[in-house]
């Protein structure tokens, strides 16, 4: 197979000016992979700066409610900065230090990856610029506020749909000019090789931990593992713990938005709207029109609202190793509500997609089985979106009053 390919997918479709940068990155990464001290340092840092190993929580109330398999939740929400994104950025931070670069850039949609990168940059003493669609800057102001407090420069991207994919393009444009000093911290298992491999390598920490945890708690492997799929990093992270165990079914959940038939969704693999393409440096299934122009996507969860998907996931899906499904916005709000009320746990809107599918299936499995949901992040950061989506009248009143206070 060609380097950087996963089946038919992946590759490195990069402008010549970045060729050398990618070569160096691949080299430094390969050296890091070979060096056992590197992984040890990474694990140590994730243990002392973030909160690894993150727990595996038994969801007893939900299990009882659905009356089938025992539901376990892998708690990536308890990471520093509130999501699995920390695993990746801290790892890349260590690579940046190895490369001797002093500046990092990143794209961000919901802001999670931006906050995580800005955090890592503060910790490592790097300069930091975050590209974020202008529309997302408006929607995700709290994250912008924190990125700025963390010392990052947040650049609103006004081109294209002013969302995640455009922020990625803009980050590439920065990189193309500043690659000597700068590393682009790709936020998910997408983009040109070796990014998918790098991000998956760091995120595998989830799967490694959870495999041991479920064996300790449940005495055997789970029958299914659920993860939401935006770019695919949290999914690849947890799936890697079970790829070699064919008896463990791996289930990815994409953003079904307003329904797969509505056209307003971000399902690349579960729906029928995507087709093979090459964009943002790699080959995968993209939501694009017949000419190859990328389409607008929609999800209540900004982190899943993306045109492409990891070439690794596309390959596993094509091989039949990963089953892909989708959850609609409405199902997500319902699952979120239930999880909060039953377990006292607030999943991120992204993560709640995985809960939807697990809830649909838990009852059909015997009580002797376990299933694991990867809770990629916490939802309290999404309060503006969640309170809005629940149409909470006191929240509206609160914001109205605050707004008036600032009007004066």
């Amino acid at each position, binding site marked *: 197979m060609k380097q950087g390919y996963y089946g038919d997918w992946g590759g*490195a479709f990069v*402008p*010549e000016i970045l060729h050398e940068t990618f070569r160096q990155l691949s080299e430094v990464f390969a050296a890091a992979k070979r060096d056992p001290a590197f992984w040890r340092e990474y694990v140590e840092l994730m243990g002392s700066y973030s909160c690894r190993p993150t727990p595996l929580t038994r969801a007893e109330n939900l299990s009882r409610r659905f009356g089938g398999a025992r539901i376990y939740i892998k708690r990536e929400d308890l990471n520093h900065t509130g999501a699995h994104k920390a695993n990746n950025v801290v790892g890349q931070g260590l690579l940046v230090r190895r490369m001797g670069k002093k500046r990092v850039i990143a794209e961000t949609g919901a802001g999670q990856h931006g906050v995580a990168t800005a955090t890592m940059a503060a910790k490592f003493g790097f300069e930091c610029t975050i590209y974020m669609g202008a529309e997302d800057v408006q929607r995700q102001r709290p994250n912008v506020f924190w990125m700025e407090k963390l010392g990052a420069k947040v650049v609103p991207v006004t081109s294209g749909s002013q969302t995640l994919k455009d922020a990625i393009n803009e980050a590439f444009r920065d990189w193309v000019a500043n690659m*000597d000093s700068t590393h682009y911290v790709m936020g998910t298992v997408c983009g040109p090789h070796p990014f998918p491999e790098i991000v998956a390598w760091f995120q595998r920490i989830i799967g490694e931990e959870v495999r041991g945890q479920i064996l300790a708690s449940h005495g055997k492997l789970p029958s299914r593992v659920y993860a939401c799929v935006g770019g695919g990093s949290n999914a690849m992270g947890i799936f890697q713990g079970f790829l070699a165990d064919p008896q463990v079914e791996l289930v990815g959940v994409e953003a079904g938005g307003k329904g797969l038939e509505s056209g307003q969704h971000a399902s690349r693999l579960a729906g029928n709207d995507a087709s093979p393409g090459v964009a943002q440096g790699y080959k995968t299934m993209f939501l694009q029109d017949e000419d190859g122009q990328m389409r607008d996507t929609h999800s209540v969860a900004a982190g899943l609202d993306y045109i492409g998907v990891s070439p690794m996931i596309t390959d596993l899906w094509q091989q039949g190793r990963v089953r892909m499904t989708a959850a609609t916005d409405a199902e997500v709000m319902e699952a979120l509500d239930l999880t909060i009320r039953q377990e006292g746990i607030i999943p991120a809107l992204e993560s709640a997609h995985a809960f939807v599918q697990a809830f649909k299936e838990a009852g059909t499995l015997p009580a002797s089985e376990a299933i694991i949901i990867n809770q990629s992040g916490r939802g309290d950061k999404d309060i503006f979106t969640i309170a809005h989506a629940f149409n909470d009248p006191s929240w509206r009143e609160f914001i109205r009053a605050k707004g008036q206070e600032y009007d004066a």
Partner: protein
Amino acid sequence: MTLEQELRTKLAEKNILLMTHLVVGYPSLAVNREVIGQMVAAGVDIIELQIPFSEPVADGPVILKANQEAIDAGIRVRECLEFAAEMATTHPIPFLFMTYYNILFKYGVESFLEKTRAAGLQGLIIPDLPPEEGEEYLAGCRRLDLAPIQIFAPTSSSERMRYLASQGAGFIYCVARRGVTGAQTSFDREFDHYIQRCRQATDLPLAVGFGISSAQDVAMLKGRAEIAVIGSATIRLVEERGPAAVGPFIAGLRP
């Protein structure tokens, strides 16, 4: 006659050639027609026709906006092919396509190249398609006698340049500096050294792009490169002063 031969012939007469660029469908095919007419009349030697793509990562703000507005205005790939055929038939200079790989990939690389050839174009510039990813494309170009223009960058090693050159034809597009299209380049010692390296790596003519917008810039390139590429500058000009300003501008570049 191959593209390279055609350029060599022109170079016998002029000490530097001009290649201009425009985004098909921006602001409209009608304006494109007028602009191309002006360019050809003003003595332009080659024209790049950029087929708009929604994710033009290698382009700066001016061309990015042009791509988007053309798509928003509804331009289709099919129309670009037709328009290119019309131009190539109408004007006696070489035309090239510039676009991103997904446009070819989605169309079908083979069919796209066949259409390109049938339209009478002489080559393509695909900035996000390194030769390692372009086997089918390179083979198709070879088969159809299209020039798959390769790109050198200041960050390319000499070895890499030789490899790229071995995969290309027509001429080499030398990116003058780090960064995207549209910003100024300074032609300093480092630049000279870079061009020297390019020259050592290939016998193909060298085109230099990125930020060229004045007779002075073009004059600086004389003796260094064979082709001066004018990209964003004409788009900006059309936006600010209309298509009629293009002819005098081009004519003034090589006084």
